[in-house]
């Protein structure tokens, strides 16, 4: 039996799917549309034809014309008046203490301000803040954090986190919100995550929902919900892992990414990682394919093939030569998200830089 019935209800009905449909139909949406409030909209211009054809007296019409003229003038003046709401930048409110935007402290009675493009927000050991990221999400800023708004609006919203901790909840389209850190760029792909940067510039990204891309030059990592990825200055993102991985697996991975000083040490840590990997750790092993020497790639391939058999269209030879299409096909097999999202963002990123 093929998948046509599952796909669009055509073809030979699958009795098992029909049974599931029947059982689950009780949960189907059945609500009536609520009474929606009217959106305040610009008043439509009234037609002159209707005005002329009305039975109003000339005097009333003249008075109306005067009022309309004054109203139009008023609207024109008002529309050209600078508005505080239209100022570029994001709204920031103090959650605790008195954070600062540039040198201006806010909090208490003056608990909110704007973070303009190029401006820096600093929290000390007693202060915290919340940022409304345009209309696409919020960023909670923890204590002892320093960040800067690099760009905002038009699908390009960018922060630079110099140090400290932020929690981002973003509902924009993938790739519209990025955070620069001293050692990698975090790219939101539809998610909620926490990003920490210490004084040395090393970072840690923990995804709670959805997934995040982490990138520096050609080094990249995909971090789905429940996974963690460390990053170091001049090295970039390490290999992501699920935070329920064993302690020895995580220790070996940390040494492999940032601690091993000789190829032999690195090779020994790789063996330990592969030996300790569970099925769920296919996430990590997939990333290792592009991070190991060519001579070691075969063993990584073999381990990944055991944890998650390669899908149709993926060959050992192709993976050993790091065929991008095959790597993406195998990634999609993990069921953690579609690699095309990330590739689309990469293309637009490259075009924006060129």
């Amino acid at each position, binding site marked *: 039996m093929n*998948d046509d019935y*599952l*796909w*669009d*209800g055509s073809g030979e009905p699958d009795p*098992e*799917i029909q*049974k*599931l*449909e029947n*059982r*689950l*139909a*009780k*949960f*189907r*949406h059945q*609500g009536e*549309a*609520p009474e*929606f*409030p*009217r*959106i*305040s*909209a*610009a008043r*439509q211009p009234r037609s002159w034809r209707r005005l002329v054809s009305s039975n109003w007296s000339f005097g009333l019409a003249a008075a109306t014309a005067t009022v309309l003229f004054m109203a139009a003038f008023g609207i024109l003046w008002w529309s050209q008046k600078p508005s505080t709401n239209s100022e570029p930048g994001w709204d920031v409110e103090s959650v605790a203490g008195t954070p600062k935007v540039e040198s201006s402290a806010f909090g208490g009675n003056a608990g909110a301000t704007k973070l303009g493009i190029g401006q820096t927000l600093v929290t000390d050991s007693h202060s915290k803040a919340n940022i409304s990221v*345009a*209309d696409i*999400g919020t960023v909670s800023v923890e204590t002892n954090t320093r960040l800067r708004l690099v760009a905002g609006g*038009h*699908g390009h919203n960018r922060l630079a986190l110099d140090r400290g901790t932020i929690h981002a*909840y*973003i*509902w*924009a*389209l993938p790739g519209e919100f990025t955070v620069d850190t001293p050692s990698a760029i975090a790219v939101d792909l*539809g998610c*909620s995550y926490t990003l920490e940067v210490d004084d040395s510039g090393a970072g840690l990204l923990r995804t*709670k*929902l*959805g997934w995040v891309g982490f990138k520096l030059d050609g080094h990249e990592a995909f971090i789905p*919900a429940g996974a963690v990825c460390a990053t170091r200055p001049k090295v970039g993102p390490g290999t992501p892992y699920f935070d*329920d991985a064993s302690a020895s697996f995580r220790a070996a991975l940390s040494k492999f990414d940032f601690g091993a000083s000789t190829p032999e040490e690195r090779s020994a840590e790789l063996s330990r990682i592969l030996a300790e990997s569970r099925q769920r750790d296919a996430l990590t092993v997939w990333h290792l394919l592009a991070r190991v020497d060519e001579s070691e790639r075969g063993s990584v391939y073999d381990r990944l093939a055991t944890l998650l058999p390669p899908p149709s269209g993926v060959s050992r030879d192709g993976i050993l030569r790091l065929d991008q299409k095959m790597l993406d096909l195998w990634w*999609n097999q993990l*069921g*953690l*998200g*579609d690699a*095309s999202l990330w590739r689309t963002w990469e293309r637009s990123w490259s075009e924006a830089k060129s």
Partner: protein
Amino acid sequence: MTDAPAPRPADDSSLVLAARQGDRAAFGGLYARYARMVHGILLARVPASDVDDLVQDVFLRALPRLRDLRDVARFGPWIAAITRNRANDYYRQTRAVAAVTESLPEDEAELPASNTAPDAEAAAILTFVRSLPETYRETLILRLVEGMTGPEIAVRTGLTPGSVRVNLHRGMQQLREKLNQAALASGLVADSSSGRNAAAQGKNSLRRRNEP
């Protein structure tokens, strides 16, 4: 299975533009078209008892933001993103930022009050669907619960048809495995007690999955 044709982007655009001008009927049209998708996305993440209220909340949140929608033809992906975020907020508000399955109390599956065999069985199946990876469970709920076709899911969520088809295929494969493991697949359960047992198995399966 629905007979409703998948919407054309142009149709959404005109409804969005009219709704922006204050046309409540146009927004009602968008609601009629997308309520099932919003419902399904929420059902994949939050307890079923709260989903209906959240559906209305999502649309009420979206209404004043319509002017911020840059590409009016992409209303579907836009409100899908708002919906996922609303589900996130649900857990933030209840101090349990986690997968929906993790937050279900020990004794609270989706068992309805009637506790009849079909109801208990439906609750058990839903629990199994919601134990699947996020990508699969959302697509599968839109297909099996909301009755949307694959092409319709693709048009409304903004996913590629290929991705939807893959998600349906793999999600169904995993669901079958889980149902088989729970001895639900063949004939499903026949009495309410076994239905409740199945629900319990579903919850245990989730618990195992979430244990470190």
